[in-house]
Each structure stands twice: as structure tokens, then as C-alpha cells.
């Protein structure tokens, strides 16, 4: 384990920003802190980096308590959303900055800068100044600067937030590649689920200063821990449940609308529950043992190969379904539509 966060809390005056956060980051993994703005993910990163002191709790880096150390003595690297490159230094000087402070010799420094610029594919640009580079190139310099002195862990604070979509996808690929190649341990902050899914080994979903759920992307996606995780991470519809019975093997019998299904469950006895149904788990064809959801079509958005159909159901309120365009024949705005939820893709979750 590289990073061990133990019962960490941080408050600004009376306002709690982080509450009792415990989180472990393993060697060589990319862990994403995912959450809406104000959920505390950036604050957590700042506490790890040493820009903010925790109110209580500890941060251990390879077993060493770094909670009270200055940022300089923690041995972490960081990539900022707005690059934060030193404008008066060239690309090479930016990358060499951490090495220079560590009194690495000139020859070794130059070798290391060449290596880093090769890694982030910026060979030939070492003499340029940041303002002469594009946004994507600047962020690659920032990545090189953070990696150059071989830190134990690299913190990334929404590093792709300022880039446009096409560039973001390209950079995601590059970050994945570098992560694999170096086996670097990375804590990555974002509010974008797609980015988190594309990059992460594990994801910690944050809500109101707490970690709502930690796990592998597929696991969080298919077995969300609660209604917030299901709604925020998987964009799931939350259906009101009439009755339910937990069956003890991680599944439950659920009466919902005019049907009854057996489905997976992450709820505990006594929880208030709701049925999480992802947008792609709604079909036009009725399979045996599926739930019927009906309502008036209120919105249709064409996404190319698929369409996003919203229906207004008297029983469940607004339901959004993503349906293959080939199956969309006969769907008319303002007309009645019935859809079916396949039971194996629905999850009973506790409400938060």
C-alpha cells in the first residue's frame, strides 16, 4: 500500500469539508476521486499534497506519517487543472525544476528531462516557453514535470478539465499509457464519469465530504452501493419500490409498479430502498420476468446509433432510456410508450 488515509477530517470554521475519510491507494494503481463539485475531492487532494492541514486524522505515505510535513518534503508530484507551468521557464527548465531542487547533477538532469519529454512525446520542444504551446502540450509538460523526480504518488486535479473533448480522449489514452509503462501510483480527481471509467483501476465516489463508495469501475457500475452512486455514476433511473424482501444472497424480491422481479441488491435490512435501473437496461421487447414501465414520451434526443427517450410515467415520474436507433420505430413524441426493465440489470439500492 502506497498511500493510507486514516479517518481524515477537514473543516473550515464550522463547515466540514471532509468527514472521517479512510482510503487506501495500492502500489501502481490509478485511483479516481469522482464526485460533483463541492463533494470534497479537491480538498482531499490538497490535504494529501500538504496545501491544507487536516483537522484530524492522518495521511501515511509508505507507512510514514506525512500529515504535518510541508509539501516539499512529502515526495509527491502534482498536475494542476490549469497546468501551472512556470511561464518564465522553458519546457526543459520546467521539467527539470524538481530535479534541480533535489540537487541532481547536470548530466543526470538533462538525461532525465530527455527521458520525460520522450515519455510525454514532446521531443524537440524543450526550448519553447509555455505560452508557445497548445493546451494539450502544456498539460503534457506539467505531467513530465510531476513525473521527473520519480515521486511515490502523483496527484492529478482535473488535469483534462480545460481541454476540449477530442483532446481529452487523446490525453486519457496517453495518461493510461504512461501509467502502464511506469507503473506509477496516481490519485486522479475528476467530476466526469466517462473519464473515470476510461482511466481508473478503482474509483472512490465522493459525496458531501465523505467517500460514498470505493471499488472497481465495473463493480460500482453494476452494483452501486446506494441511490446517489447509482444516479451520479451510472445515470440510473430510481424507481419507487412498493414492497421488497431481502433474500440474503445479495439478491431481493421486489414489487415495483404492477410487476414483481428478483434482482440484485446492495441494501441492508431496515434500509429505505429504491430500484436503480440504468438507461441501457430499458428495452422495448418484453422478456419473461421483466418489469413494465409506461408513460408519455416527453423528449427524444438522437445520439446517432442510439436515442435517448424520456417518458413521463404516472407511477415513477420521469424515466430516461437509451435505446438503439434501430429499435426506435414508432416512438412518437407525446404518444404513450411502454418499456421493459430486465431484472438481471436492475439493482435494489438503499436511499441516501
Amino acid at each position, binding site marked *: 500500500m502506497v498511500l493510507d488515509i486514516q479517518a481524515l477530517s477537514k473543516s473550515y470554521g464550522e463547515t466540514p469539508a471532509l468527514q472521517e475519510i479512510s482510503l487506501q491507494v495500492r502500489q501502481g494503481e490509478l485511483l479516481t476521486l469522482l464526485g460533483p463539485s463541492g463533494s470534497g475531492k479537491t480538498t482531499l487532494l490538497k490535504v494529501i*499534497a*500538504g*496545501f491544507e492541514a487536516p483537522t484530524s486524522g492522518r495521511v501515511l505515505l509508505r507507512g510514514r506519517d506525512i500529515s504535518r510535513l*510541508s*509539501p*516539499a518534503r*512529502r515526495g*509527491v*508530484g*502534482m498536475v*494542476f487543472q*490549469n497546468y*501551472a*507551468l*512556470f*511561464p*518564465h521557464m522553458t519546457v526543459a527548465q520546467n521539467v527539470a*525544476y*524538481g530535479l534541480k*531542487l*533535489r540537487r541532481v547533477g547536470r548530466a543526470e538532469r538533462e538525461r532525465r528531462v530527455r527521458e520525460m519529454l520522450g515519455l510525454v512525446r514532446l521531443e524537440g520542444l524543450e526550448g519553447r516557453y509555455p505560452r508557445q504551446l497548445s493546451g494539450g502540450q502544456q498539460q503534457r509538460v*506539467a505531467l513530465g*514535470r*510531476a513525473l521527473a*523526480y520519480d515521486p511515490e504518488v502523483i*496527484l492529478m486535479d482535473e488535469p483534462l478539465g480545460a481541454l476540449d473533448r477530442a483532446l481529452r480522449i487523446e490525453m486519457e489514452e496517453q495518461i493510461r499509457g504512461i501509467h502502464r509503462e511506469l507503473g506509477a501510483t496516481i490519485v486522479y480527481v475528476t467530476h466526469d464519469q466517462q473519464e473515470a471509467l476510461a482511466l481508473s483501476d478503482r474509483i472512490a465516489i465522493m459525496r458531501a465530504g465523505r467517500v460514498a463508495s470505493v471499488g472497481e469501475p465495473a463493480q460500482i457500475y453494476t452494483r452501486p452501493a446506494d441511490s446517489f452512486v447509482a444516479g451520479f455514476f451510472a445515470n440510473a433511473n430510481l424507481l419507487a419500490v412498493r414492497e421488497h424482501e431481502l433474500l440474503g444472497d445479495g439478491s431481493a424480491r421486489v414489487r415495483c409498479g404492477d410487476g414483481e422481479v428478483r434482482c440484485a441488491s446492495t441494501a441492508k435490512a431496515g434500509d429505505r430502498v429504491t430500484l436503480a435501473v440504468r438507461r441501457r437496461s430499458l428495452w422495448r421487447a418484453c422478456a419473461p420476468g421483466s418489469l413494465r414501465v409506461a408513460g408519455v414520451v416527453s423528449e427524444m434526443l438522437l445520439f446517432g446509433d442510439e436515442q435517448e427517450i424520456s417518458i413521463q410515467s404516472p407511477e415513477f415520474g420521469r424515466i430516461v432510456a437509451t435505446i438503439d436507433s434501430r429499435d426506435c420505430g414508432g416512438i412518437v413524441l407525446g404518444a404513450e410508450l411502454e418499456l421493459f426493465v430486465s431484472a438481471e440489470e436492475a439493482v435494489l439500492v438503499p436511499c441516501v
Partner: protein
Amino acid sequence: MTRALLGDRFTGAASAAVVAVTTFALLVPAALVMVLSFSDDRFFDFPPHAWGLHQYRTLLEDSRWSLALWLSVRIAAPVALLAALVVVPTLFTIHRSRLPFRNALQVGGIAGIILPISAYAVAMYGVYAQIGLLGTYWGLVLANLTLAVPVMLLVTSAAMSRIPVELELAAMVAGASRMQAWFAITLRLLAPAIMAGGVLAFVTSLDEAVLINFLGGPGQETLPKAILDSVRYGLEPVITAIATLLMVGTSLAMAFAVRLARRGAL
């Protein structure tokens, strides 16, 4: 055409006219003085009867003017330097600390140029008389400093707010102490603005004509005071040459300062 557009056109034309008249009113006397400075006449007359460099020769020969200039420079140079020494820590306090009264510091810092200068001069006269600073060199330096600090603070504060704090954080994560980050990154990026502020502080002090009349003692004749006295006790044409040199000098200094400030912009 809509009414709003017409209104726009009218205000546009009106403000252009105001700017034109103001500029004209400012520039004509300045141009006139410059023209007059190349007159060889003994007395003011326009247009001059004879052209030449007589006024500039008089200026060089009369030690009174060079002494006055020398005193002004001897005050303005330390004022600019001391202003930087006061302003730089103030900037870091205002922009980088979490002190509760840091905004009050910003307002207090520029008070010197908000207060009416004559009222301020009376107040300083009272204080100086009490502590025996009247008519002293350091008294004048201190008085001019209270005017130069606000000027410099305004220029550099704008530049400081354009330097993202993340740059310091990035330096610190990479292994720099807070002091190293401040010196190697923030102060380095602030340097052009500090230089520009220094030039403005120097010019402000060089040009100071009110406080000197209250706080200066016998024999303490700065350039603005010498000009004022010369006008008061009989008009000597030589002041056209001084005025011209002052205008050209400060314009060049200002242009230099503006260029520095622009180069410093991120």
C-alpha cells in the same frame, strides 16, 4: 434605425468630442512651452524673435537648477527603492496570507493618494514639527514615500493578482520551500511590475510640489519648488527649458514603465 442605436451614436460622438477637447487643452500648453524653450529672447514673447539654445545654456550654467535637480533625484531614488521594500511584503500579505485585515491593508496602502494633498500636507507639518523632522532630508524622503507607495502598490497589485497561486503550489510540491517558491517564481514574475512601479514612484517623487512647500526648510529646493519660486518671483524664460526636459524625461520614463508592465503580464 432604433432609438438605442441613435443614442449610442450620440454618446459615442459626445465622448469623442470631450476626449478631443481635453487632449487638445492638455497638449497645446505643453507644445507651447516646448516651442518657447527654443527661443533666444530675454523675456517671454510669442512668437519668439530669435531661435536658439539660449535657455538650455542658461540652465546648464546656473548651478541653482542643477542643484535643485540633484536634490530631487537624491530624494526620488531612495523613495523608489524604499517603496519597493515596503510594497513587496505588503503584496504578499494582501494576496497570499489569510490575515483578517488584509483588505484594510490594501485600502490603507493607497490612502496617501486618496486624501486631499493639501490637507495631508498640513497634517504632516503638524507631526513633523512635533518630532523635529521639518526641513530634514529624511523627512522629505519619508513624506514622498507616503505618496510613492500607493502608486507602486496599485501597479504591482494588479500584476500580483494575475499570478496564479498554483504556480507557488506547483513549486512547493516539486520540492521548494515557501520562500524559494516566492523568490524563484512569484517575485521573479513580479519583477517587471516592480520595476515599472519603481519608475512611477521615482517620477511621483521627482514631481512632488506641494509637500515640499510645507515640510522643506531653507536651502531645500527641489526642482518643482525651484520652478514654482522662479514663477513666483519673476518669470524667467529658463523654466520653459526645464519644463520641456521634465516632460520629455517623465514621458520616456512612463513609456518605459508601461512597456515593462506589459512584458510582465502573463
